[in-house]
């Protein structure tokens, strides 16, 4: 117990790196998901094919494999060495972005055709239609699945432990080696991961509630912050590489 209190700052440092990786990955994954997701709805075969290739390749290869490729193969192939941290964020973002792109694409396609027809009747251009009408409506549909993806991305950050970035998993394993106190050390690490996940889920729920409010829908489980703490709905959706 004393050991844990003594080492508490190291846990926090590890957790902080995990959070940085998560947030960096989320930003990149979000940009990629939006870009390729929208590309996948364009009425021309070329952008759609580009989107399909991106989605299938990076959904098909685990983030860990991509990270290894970026760290070991890329420098040999190009002579260009990425920072490990950046390579990790890139691998996580590319992987989760591919799952996200599918969510974006299907959410855009789920916007009623009548809404698109209304934008035509008002002579909106494609960018106007997307920005003003389609994306704001698709957004509410994307969020629940994004919530699952964000947690999966957070879990996937632990792979950086394998390239010796000092994230929460690395710190836990290091402290275990130092002290031999496997169970308490890992329980603290698990609890911190759990808390980060809950914070992420909570954040996405807030966004979800706001999005639904904007569409004039009332939250299904009653108002108040307590309503946001209902157990997460784990989609029977695809899992992402942990």
């Amino acid at each position, binding site marked *: 117990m004393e050991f844990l209190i003594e080492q508490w700052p190291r846990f926090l440092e590890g957790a902080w790196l995990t959070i940085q990786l998560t947030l960096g990955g989320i930003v990149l994954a979000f940009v990629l998901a939006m870009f390729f997701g929208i590309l996948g709805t364009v009425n021309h075969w070329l952008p759609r094919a580009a989107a399909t290739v991106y989605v299938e390749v990076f959904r098909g290869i685990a983030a860990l494999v991509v990270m290894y490729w970026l760290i070991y193969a890329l420098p040999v192939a190009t002579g260009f060495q990425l920072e490990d941290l950046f390579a990790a964020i890139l691998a996580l973002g590319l992987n989760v972005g591919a799952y996200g792109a599918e969510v974006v694409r299907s959410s855009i396609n789920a916007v009623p055709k009548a809404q698109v027809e209304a934008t035509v009747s008002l*002579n909106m251009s494609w960018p106007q239609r997307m920005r003003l009408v389609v994306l704001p409506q698709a957004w509410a549909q994307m969020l629940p699945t994004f919530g699952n993806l964000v947690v999966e991305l957070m879990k996937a950050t632990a792979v950086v432990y394998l390239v010796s970035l000092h994230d929460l998993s690395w710190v836990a394993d290091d402290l275990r080696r130092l002290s031999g106190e496997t169970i308490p050390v890992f329980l603290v690490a698990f609890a911190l991961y759990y808390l980060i996940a809950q914070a992420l889920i909570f954040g996405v729920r807030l966004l979800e509630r706001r999005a639904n409010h904007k569409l004039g829908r009332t939250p299904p489980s009653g108002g108040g912050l307590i309503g946001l703490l209902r157990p997460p709905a784990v989609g029977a959706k695809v899992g992402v590489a942990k």
Partner: protein
Amino acid sequence: MPPSDTPENTTAPGVEGGSAEDKLIVFDQVVKRFGDLTVLDHLDFSVAPGERVTLIGPSGSGKTTILRLLMTLEKITEGHIWIDGEPFSHMPRGSGLVPASESYLRQKRKRIGMVFQQFNLFPNMTVRKNIMEAPVHVLGLSRDEASERAQELLDLVGLGDKIDAHPTQLSGGQQQRVAIARALAMRPEILLLDEVTSALDPELVAGVLDVLREVAETTDITMLCVTHEMGFARDVSHRVLMFDKGQIAEEGHPDQIFGDPREERTKSFLKSVLENGH
């Protein structure tokens, strides 16, 4: 609506060729097929500027398809549509005509507005924004101008106090009146009304029709209206086209069509509509 302002050609068959200059809208041998199903079969008709035309006929007779072709929501299979003497479904290239591109259509459909059966208000916007966004982004109006225009139009449709409401807080009839205001905010020359009261509870129909009567009386917008509201059609339109199987079965002044239909198909259609309580 007094028939006095009826254009002279009301009773003309309206099947002039594509170059008729006094015509605003001309359908020239228009064919529309969905797969094997022919919805419009070599259709010819035309509409004069300021004319209000009601399209009636059994469901599946192609009336709505005409509006959707004019709104460019469907692509024409064969034939041509002309607006104001210029090609609409097609665009000139070289010496001939090719199917219109999206940018050409954007140019041409500026003059056309549409009100839908299901209102199709944007649920992610307040009433004000529903009306304002297109004038601001498409026509380039300032936000203040557009907001002012929204307020005026809402006053016109009797919903001046609902400007900051959310569409889901409105009844179907109110939503439809907002949709009319939204279409009018674009100052269209041609307004397409696609069964605008069919989705409404009976007690809400009158309010919407009153608004449209008002629009008809106070503006010179050309209107094409698909409806089952025969009383409204009689009051407002200069001409009624009876459709059946993708072609015009009969056309004429509303008094003649409703009072003294000549075609058997028109008679039986009108009878069935009356029996259904319209």
